[in-house]
């Protein structure tokens, strides 16, 4: 089954790294390749292949934008826009919930669901870690966490 939300990394030297090299999603790059070049990472995007929505994390300026097709609205940049002098570190992971049900017994693999978490964190002047994070579903539901 093909992924609906796929990532794209843009680096400061202008190079791009797509999660998949082909539309059939048969040739995949590991996220570790992004982590290995995190100091060079400029922008990280999640693309919804079904709806065309793009979620951008600008790690140079501490911004998150959501670009929807046929819309000029970008959100929720105002809530998360940061200071360009800070160093922003990418946060990205998929949270998977596996469920099983039963009565006298337990059935396995009853169902599962996945949310994507995307954003950044930085170290504040007082030493605390500040996180700005979106929770994104495959249906383009977005929650600022």
């Amino acid at each position, binding site marked *: 089954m093909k992924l609906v939300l796929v990532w794209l990394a843009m680096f400061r030297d202008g190079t791009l790294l797509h999660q998949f090299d082909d539309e059939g999603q048969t040739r995949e790059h590991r996220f570790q390749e992004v*982590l290995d070049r995190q100091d060079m990472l400029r922008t990280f995007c999640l693309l919804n292949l079904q709806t065309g929505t793009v979620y951008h994390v600008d790690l140079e300026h501490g911004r998150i934008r959501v670009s929807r097709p046929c819309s000029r609205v970008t959100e929720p940049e105002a809530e998360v826009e940061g200071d360009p002098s800070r160093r922003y570190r990418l946060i990205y992971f998929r949270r998977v919930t596996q*469920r099983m*049900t039963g*009565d006298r*017994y*337990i059935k396995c693999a*009853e169902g599962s669901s996945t949310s994507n978490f995307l954003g950044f964190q930085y170290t504040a002047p007082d030493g605390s870690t500040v996180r700005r994070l979106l929770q994104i579903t495959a249906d383009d539901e977005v929650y600022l966490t």
Partner: protein
Amino acid sequence: MPATFEWAESNGAAETVTVPVANANFGNVDAPNLTTPNNRVVAGQNSYEKWLCGRFSGTYTAISNLKCWKSGGVLPANVSIKAAVNAPYSTPVSTPSAVATADIPTAEASALVPASPGASPSFSGYIAMQLQIGAAASPGAIPTQTYTLKYDEV
């Protein structure tokens, strides 16, 4: 692609691992994929322990932050499900478990935390469970229970 997840069950003294398992039915024998209404656990007895874990394979960088809890369903009076995680495997028993001694958590905030798997393919820490039925339990079916395993992957 996302990591491929499969439930696995270990049985026997020599630890035979079955992957995947179609169910994890509690019963009066130590075997995977038990069917009902066979293998019933009657009042006053315990099921054999179930030693489950998650098998993760495919393309992933890391699996972390595992949580396991019972997220739905009410158990009848005098019926309990005991659980524990990350103990080293031991032959499943139907005597009161020395491993799964605490009631399985019923909220994410108090969830059990299985150990994360290593590089693909790999297994999570064990989730040991046992159904314990008191002598005073009423006969009949147990209402539907829902169990949840949550994890983060990149």
